[in-house]
Structures are given as C-alpha cells and as structure tokens.
C-alpha cells in the first residue's frame, strides 16, 4: 500500500480513537472503556474496506456473546469449580475462532471478558446482571455508532474507493512480476515451482479478501477492474496448472500463455 495512504489512515484512526476516548471519559461512565474497546476491535484490519463490515459483525457477535454469557452466569455462578474448566474451553475457543469468521471470534471474546472481569461473582439479584449486560451492550453499540459516523460521514466514500484502487494497483503489480517469472517454469520438476505457485495463490487470496466487501454501488469502474484482475489471476493459475499437470489441450507452451496473460494485463492498464 502507498505510504501516503497508510499515513492518512493512521491519522484517521487516531482521530477515531480521540473521539471514542472523549465519549468514554467525558460522561464519567463506569463502563466507558467498552466504547474504546469496541472501536479498538473494529479498526483492527486497518483498511476501511474491511473495517466497515467488521463493525456490523461486531454488533452481531457482541449481542450473541452477551446472551451466551448471561446464560452461563445464570447456570455456573454457583459452581466455582467450573471456572478453570470454562477458562480452558474459552482459551481454546478464542484461538480457534481467531482464524474463523469475525462474528464468532467476537462472540467468544465477549463471553470471556464478561465472565472474567469478576462477573461470575456478581450477586444474583434480579436486576444486577441485567444492568451489567445492558451497560456493556450500550458501550459496544455507542462504539460502533462512533465508528460508523466517522467512517461514513467524515472520511467518506472516497476513502473506500482510494483503498480499493490501491489494492487493485498492488495486485496488478504483483501479477506483472509473477507473469515474468512464469517463463522460467520447470515442468519436468514441479516441486521447484512451489514458491511461485504459493506466491500466485496467496496474492490472489489477499486481493480477493481485501475487495470482498466492495460492491458495484461504490464505484463501478473500480469494482469491474477488481473482478477482471481476479479473472486474470485465475487464468494465470490455470495456465501454470495445465503446464505442470501435462494437460495442455491446445498445445500452447507456457511462454505463449504468459504473453497472452501479459497482453490481457496491459489491456487492463490502458
């Protein structure tokens, strides 16, 4: 990513943190830190294309997590021996879901934090747990509201488009480098080409993930370009696959295939 874009985003993140901090401290609210925690979790992926979707997933995950922790507290608050067992299960859950969908991760994190910060010892009066959970939920949703307001109305749609364009440019440059390397593909010893295969596959996966939340409504031209680049990458992979698998139906060698893909990419640039 270009350095200027990274710097601009860093400043935006700092502004976001300042506003969230003011929201959490000025009202002198006991659980104000949850606004900060929410904003801190949402800004995780850094790119606005990913963080916006993350804020929605956080809302879902938090709601589910709070309901689950309420049930767990109601069931286990009188069984102190169950806490270490639950701790190990939650530790497994955090590490497992860290590599899965964000909403599940946030759900487990919410349960862990809610249960661990002395919540298991909350006296079980009819109102106390509910006020506790509602204040946590309020903190999270205020945090999401602060983020969405700033991201959508202050930083604006243009920021999303800038990041999508930069992501496309980045991927295009990577593809151009990889196409050049394909000329040196050794079909007689496929294991030698492993680093190249991994580079193509990872570059495609990274680009697909970075633009996965982009819709045609954002910018049709940028959206179409991202799709075309994905198709070129797929074609590149298939060319490599066919050569290494020995299933070249058309009989074209890899140099001709690489040139054709390069021409497609050049067409894309113009």
């Amino acid at each position, binding site marked *: 990513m270009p350095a200027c874009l990274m710097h601009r985003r860093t400043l935006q993140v700092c502004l976001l943190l300042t506003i969230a901090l003011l929201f959490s401290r000025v009202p002198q609210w006991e659980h104000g830190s949850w606004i900060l925690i929410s904003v801190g979790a949402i800004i995780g992926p*850094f790119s606005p294309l990913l963080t916006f979707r993350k804020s929605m997933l956080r809302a879902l995950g938090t709601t589910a997590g709070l309901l689950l922790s309420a049930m767990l507290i109601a069931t286990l608050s009188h069984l102190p021996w169950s806490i270490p067992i639950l701790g190990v299960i939650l530790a497994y859950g955090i590490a497992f879901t860290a590599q899965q969908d964000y909403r599940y991760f946030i759900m487990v994190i919410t349960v862990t934090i809610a249960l661990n910060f002395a919540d298991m010892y909350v006296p079980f009066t009819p109102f106390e747990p509910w006020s506790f959970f509602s204040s946590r939920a309020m903190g999270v949703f205020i945090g999401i509201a602060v983020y969405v307001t700033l991201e959508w109305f202050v930083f604006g749609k243009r920021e999303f488009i800038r990041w999508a364009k930069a992501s496309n440019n980045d991927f295009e440059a990577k593809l151009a480098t990889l196409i050049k390397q394909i000329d040196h593909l050794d079909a007689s010893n496929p294991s030698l080409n492993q680093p190249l295969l991994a580079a193509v596959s990872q570059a495609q996966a990274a680009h697909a993930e970075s633009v996965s939340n982009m819709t045609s409504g954002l910018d049709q031209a940028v959206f179409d370009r991202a799709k075309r680049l994905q198709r070129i990458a797929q074609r590149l992979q298939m060319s490599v696959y066919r050569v*290494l698998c020995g299933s070249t139906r058309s009989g074209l060698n890899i140099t001709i295939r690489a040139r054709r893909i390069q021409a497609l990419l050049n067409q894309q640039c113009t």
Partner: protein
Amino acid sequence: MSTCTTERWIDRVDPYGYARQAGLKVSYVAIIFFLVNAFWKAPTLAVLTMCVAGAGIVLIEMPSINTPKKKDVSYIVFTLLTIITVSIFRFFSYFTVLELVAIVGWSYVLYRLIAKDTEKAQVVAIAILIGFVSLEAPGATDFWQWVNQTAFYVQFAVIAFVAHKLFPNRYMRIVNNIMRQIWLLQQRQLTEPDKTSSTAMGTDFLKHLSALEQVKPLLTAQTREHLPALIQALWQYQHTIEAAARHADREAIEQILITHKALLKQMQAPTKATSPTDDDQKLVAANTLRQAWSHLCQLA
C-alpha cells in the same frame, strides 16, 4: 489423517487444522497460567496478566508466521509492545488530559513506526486493543505498584515463551490435513465432473499445494528434504486423475475410485504400504504417491 471419505464439517471450517492446532496450544498455555496463578498472586487482575502474556501465542499460530524464528521473534516483539502499551495506558489513566495525549500519541507512534503494511497494522491494533481492555482492570495507585504490575506481565510472558518452546512440533498434522483436502478434491473431480469446473479444481489444487509450501519451514529438516518427492508424486497422480475425469468412461472411473479410496486407507497406515509394480499408469501413480507419503511419515 481421517479415513472418512466424505467431507466433514471440520473440513469446511478448518481445512488444514491451523485453528485446531492454535486452540490446543493456547489451552495448554492457559492450563500452565492457571497453575502458576495458584502460587503467584497477580498484583492486578489475573486474567489481564494472562491476556497480555498469552495473546502473542494466538498471534504466532497464524499460518502466515511460518518459521520457528519468525514465531519466536514475533512473540517477543508483540509481547513487549503489548506490555509497553498496557503500562503506558495504565500509568496515564489517572490524568484526564494526559491520558488522551498518551493514548492517541502512543497509538500514532506505533502505527507510524511498525505499521508499514496492513498486516503489521493489524498486529499494532491488537496491542492497542489489549491496552484498552487493561483500562477496565483496577490500576496501580503508586509508581512502585505500577512497576510491580509491569514486572509481573514480563514474568508471565517468560513462562508463556518457555511453554511455547516446549510444545511439541505437530505441523506434520497440518501436512496430513492438506493431503486429506487434496484427496477429497480428487474424489470430487472423479465423482462430480459435471458439477465442478476444471478452473475451480485447478485453482483449488494449487491452493492446497501453496498451503504445503507455507507449512514446509515448520517441518523437521528430514521431512523437509523429502517433501519434493511427495509433491512430484502428487502432480503425477493429479495428472492421471485429470485425464481419467476427462476421458474415461463410467466403468473406468469406478475402478479408479476403488484405487483412490484404497489409497486413503493405505495412507492412514503408511508403514504397512507395499510397493507392487504395475503397468497400469494410474496404479503406478497411486503407488508412487503412497510410497512418497509412507517415507515422509516414517521420517516425521
């Protein structure tokens, strides 16, 4: 490797087993933390101390951190960053304006110095997030108490690092899972040639091979040396599967499927594998793959 011939829930959720591996390692570190906590009483919330020291373990089990050295360095750097962040946030939490300056200023410094790309920016964000979580815990009320808390984080971090170093190398299981994914893909190619496009098959096969390349540096030196033979055999076998899926009739495909299913069972018990010679190209490819896999499993 599981001998189940159909795709299971876990094959979709965690195809290569990285999440299961991370879960197991973090649970193991958590048990050690609980035991240590029974003897050393933390000067702040015990769970916060465990979170500061243990978050790095979740991070280093990400597939992209794929060498032992990278794992060690990442853990040390990340944990130091987290400890410094938590200490700064806690230290200034009693001052109204200074807290704002310290939190925003430190976040800016971290992003500017470390976040050169989005991947590193994500790591910075986790350290800052743990700093925010620490604001929920009761803080130190004097300078020496603050030093005491910080020293305790370091103590737990050292324990977590030793636990990480003592954890057995289980990355051969990841290779096992990758082999299973390739096997399932090839089975799909044979049984549902109309439903699955050749492009999707090809790109999926390359994706699995790319995962194999990613895990390679984490395997033992002996296993690493013999991985090229396995890859060679995989390509050879894939060639026969591809040709059969395209040209063979129903009866021939049924025959290949029997060999293919037998291959999974033989890969499950690799040491028992024999090396019969056969003129049939499909059987030769299957045997070569079985032998390469047996050899690799014996070394692991």
